[in-house]
């Protein structure tokens, strides 16, 4: 156990597996928002700030972000075993579901009610992900950078990705680089 004891933690490897399975199964179009909702707001295994920090690492490393995030959260509490267990939770049952859907696909692709239901769930997911971004923006108030610098960086990020369609790697390294450099200077000034 390496994390601070001031907030709740997963009680066992099984708890980790079940928690990640349940949240993966709620993620239509994006599990990340569900991770934030369940692990930060409901279970409180992570604070908002910790979640953002872990996600920054999960995002910059190669591989699927939510899989990386699960790995890191599991590893935080139970080391390698925890990492593998969280990973298994995130993938095993959803994998079976997706294979089943592939087998059924030919039959149900024609049914308008099913397609409509998927369309409705996708619309809810889109709102859910944007809302998660807005919630996390609250964490920027405690950030070492001045709030308007953070806000500008976040705004430019949206412009780069949504309007200009720049490659993600470019956005991460350019805006991320500026953010990290500025933060480094502020932290260094505060704690020389």
């Amino acid at each position, binding site marked *: 156990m390496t994390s601070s004891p001031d907030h709740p933690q997963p009680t066992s490897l099984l708890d980790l597996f079940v928690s990640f399975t349940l949240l993966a199964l709620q993620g239509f179009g*994006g599990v990340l928002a569900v991770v934030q909702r369940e692990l930060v707001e409901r279970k409180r295994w992570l604070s908002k700030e910790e979640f953002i920090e872990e996600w920054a690492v999960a995002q910059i490393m190669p591989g699927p972000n939510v899989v990386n995030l699960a790995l890191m959260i599991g590893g935080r509490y139970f080391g390698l075993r925890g990492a593998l267990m969280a990973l298994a939770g995130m993938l095993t049952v959803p994998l079976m579901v997706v*294979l089943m859907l592939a087998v059924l696909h030919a039959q149900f692709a024609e049914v308008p009610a099913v397609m409509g239901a998927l369309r409705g769930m996708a619309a*809810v997911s889109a709102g859910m992900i944007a809302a*998660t971004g807005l919630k996390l923006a609250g964490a920027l108030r405690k950030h070492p950078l001045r709030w308007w610098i953070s806000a500008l960086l976040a705004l430019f990020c949206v412009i780069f990705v949504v309007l200009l369609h720049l490659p993600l790697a470019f956005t991460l390294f350019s805006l991320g680089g500026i953010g990290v450099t500025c933060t*480094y200077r502020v932290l260094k000034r505060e704690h020389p």
Partner: protein
Amino acid sequence: MSQAPLHLVLTLGDWINLFAHYLLLSLMSIGGAISTTAEMHRFLVEEHHWLTQAQFNDAIAIAQAAPGPNVLFVALMGWKVGLNTGSYLAAFAGVAVTMLGILIPSTTLTYLAARWGHENRELLGVRAFKQGMAPVVVGLMVSVGIILGSAHRDWQQDWKLWTLSVVAGLLIWRTRIHLLWLLAAGALLGGLQLV
């Protein structure tokens, strides 16, 4: 899945080639496996003809519609490559080969990096990195929501879907209502063709 549009014979060498290719893709997948889709298409559809264009598109569409991490579209590609040889056993082998390939390198690197970062969490550089990325992390999350929300939409025709997205977003932002209720409501409205 009775209609196998291709009839493949895969040698052991082909399986190893498939595995090796996904190991490589894993290392290139900064920003998620979805960012290497173009390269998967080149390899599976154009170069080796292991998947048809329609199968490739289906794999992505089904994985997007299903719950769970988006990376599962990789498993579906492996599944369909295996099915194209005509056996379910090969389909499961395809899933194992592609998923292990796409996961092993990236998860190993991430685990080691996260452990290193945790052991050195007091270092100024580590703290500056983790905190300094925060504004971009927030911006990305909002961007993904906007991109997903505007994927199919022409306002005239789809204003109901937009409204549903915005209402769901507001409820999640401002209340603690469980996500499953909102997803169920979305499924119901869509299933009854109301959105």
